[in-house]
């Protein structure tokens, strides 16, 4: 009972737990306790004050059951965590870094930061201007993102959202971006999988995993994304680029609903409390592009049967700078990743791209819309002209190109060149399996061979528009000979 006794002596205030409802305790006493303050029970369990009125309403952050009549004392502190470079490579739970854990602070002589912090003001922010590469073609080419953007990842369960996030984290850690992954209410097996994938791809050295299990108390799961954001702010203030993944906020909303209903808050729509929007908006507002450093945020939202008009989903869509939609229909048809580019949005990503990439995104998006419309006519068994058939074939190859294995990360310039090459016809008449193999080889060569990478960059930078790049490759596609040994034939262009 050393912790309780220490705090009791320090603050000189005590209360008694009068009523216990699950993880909510109503206590009397503690005359000077403040909202959000950490309190300690006699059995050394930790709680956080939710409100102070007739009773002190406490959210218990431990999994033990608090018996009625137990004494409780103040700590005099809000929820703070120690932050520092020592966090890189660690897997942490909010309570293991939380208050009263003096060992960590003393060991690393680190600073402590409030978990519930105010976002930086407008004066400290800048426009999103640097491109953010996920390594996934479908996103980098059609739904481009920027450093400091908040992009919602939306889709049904088991549609490949988490795998996409893994690819993004791997791609970014290779570039030196610090990645904070918040796994909220996940299974132990999922956490283990994540660590294994990151370790295999050498991503752990630039990564922090903040997790809470499904078996943890709801208070702990509720605090997880805030802890992740606090750690992100530490690295941002060191002028680093940071990526925060919040997986997933619909589960987080459900935990807050459970806590609010137990705390007798009046239920609103779908029984969520009235402040559910604020709970997420105050978190996402802490991300952005700043004068020193940036925090790019990928909140994840799960949909049911593809319904993106749900309460939490629409809330998150309104507070983010776009969304990437994972379509279960596309997933069922074998598309990986199952990203529907026509239902996905990026609000600030295009401004970060060069004119060539913007042109490419425009051409590709309009082409995909055209292909989708044409495909409907094919279902009616109508006769098609040669040009339409050529375009449908190109569309089929483009879709094959956008299907990317989970372990493959393609740098942006290589992506642009390969797509332009596809348009120029380098893979005309080539089997799809061979095409996929060559894509993988090109991506590997770009990463491993600096001379080849420099040549690719030079070719891409030298062109102002996508059309110019395609025309130049039609004239001279020798850069592709390193893998294919030939330059293929020119294609019929839309």
């Amino acid at each position, binding site marked *: 009972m050393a912790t309780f006794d220490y705090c*009791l002596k320090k603050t*000189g*205030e*005590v*209360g008694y737990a009068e009523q216990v409802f699950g993880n909510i305790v109503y206590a009397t*006493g503690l005359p000077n306790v403040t909202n959000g303050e950490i309190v300690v029970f006699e059995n050394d369990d930790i709680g956080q004050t939710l409100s102070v009125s007739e009773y002190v309403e406490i959210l218990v952050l431990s999994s033990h059951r608090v018996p009625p009549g137990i004494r409780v004392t103040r700590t005099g502190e809000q929820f703070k965590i120690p932050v520092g470079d020592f966090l890189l490579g660690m897997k942490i739970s909010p309570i293991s870094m939380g208050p009263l854990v003096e060992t960590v602070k003393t060991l690393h002589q680190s600073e402590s930061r409030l978990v519930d912090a105010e976002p930086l003001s407008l004066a400290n922010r800048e426009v999103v201007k640097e491109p953010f590469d996920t390594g996934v073609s479908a996103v980098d080419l059609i739904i481009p993102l920027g450093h400091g953007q908040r992009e919602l990842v939306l889709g049904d369960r088991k549609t490949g959202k988490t795998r996409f996030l893994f690819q993004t984290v791997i791609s970014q850690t290779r570039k030196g971006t610090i990645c904070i992954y918040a796994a909220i209410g996940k299974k132990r097996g999922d956490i283990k999988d994540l660590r294994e994938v990151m370790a295999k791809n050498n991503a752990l050295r630039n990564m922090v995993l903040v997790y809470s299990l499904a078996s943890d108390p709801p208070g702990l799961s509720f605090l997880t994304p805030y802890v992740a954001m606090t750690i992100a702010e530490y690295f941002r203030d060191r002028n680093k680029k940071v990526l925060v993944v919040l997986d997933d906020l619909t589960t987080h909303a459900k935990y807050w609903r459970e806590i609010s209903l137990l705390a007798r808050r009046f239920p609103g729509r779908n029984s969520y409390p009235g402040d559910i929007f604020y709970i997420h908006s105050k978190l996402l507002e802490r991300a952005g592009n700043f004068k020193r450093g940036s925090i790019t945020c990928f909140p994840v939202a799960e949909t049911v049967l593809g319904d993106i008009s749900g309460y939490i989903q629409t809330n998150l869509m309104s507070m983010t700078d776009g969304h990437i939609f994972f379509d279960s229909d596309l997933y069922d048809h074998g598309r990986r990743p199952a990203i529907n580019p026509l239902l996905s949005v990026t609000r600030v990503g295009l401004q970060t791209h060069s004119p060539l990439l913007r042109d490419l995104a425009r051409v590709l998006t309009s082409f995909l819309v055209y292909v989708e419309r044409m495909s409907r006519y094919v279902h009616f068994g109508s006769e098609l002209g040669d040009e339409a058939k050529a375009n449908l074939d190109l569309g089929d190859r483009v879709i094959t190109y956008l299907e990317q294995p989970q372990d493959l990360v393609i740098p942006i310039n290589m992506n642009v060149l390969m797509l332009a090459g596809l348009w120029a016809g380098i893979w005309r008449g080539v089997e799809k399996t061979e095409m996929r193999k060559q894509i993988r080889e090109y991506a590997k060569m770009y990463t491993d061979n600096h001379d080849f990478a420099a040549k690719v960059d030079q070719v891409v930078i030298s062109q102002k528009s996508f059309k110019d790049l395609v025309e130049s490759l039609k004239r001279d596609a020798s850069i592709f000979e390193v893998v294919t040994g030939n330059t293929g034939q020119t294609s019929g262009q839309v």
Partner: protein
Amino acid sequence: MDILSKINTTDEIDSLVTAIDKLKTGLFTNKHYMTTAPEVIKEAYDGAVDKDAFLNDIRKELVEAKTLTMSVAAELPGQSVARIANWVKSNVGTDVVLELKIDSSLLAGTTITFNGKFKDYSFKEELTKALDKLTL
């Protein structure tokens, strides 16, 4: 009725509450428990027009009484308890009641809890401070 000024400890409150509950059960029946009613409320009870409301008010007042909790190392004799209770009534408030707990780990002295505030005047605390000084 200022019942709390006549009550010293929480033990007395508990027995009074039990007696009041027993009186309430006999109110609207042929059984009368007046002969066993505590003296402290007998006179006021006889004069009360609405006996049920009177008992409810008294009970509420007793249950919600402010308590000053003292933890001591060993059981105190009755006279000492009465002296402490009188001191509390004179210096803290006539509506404050004393609750005594036994905690042998204190060794001697007392700890006091009142209105959410805690003060430690035990011998255990003094020994701990002395040991800390020695260690330093």
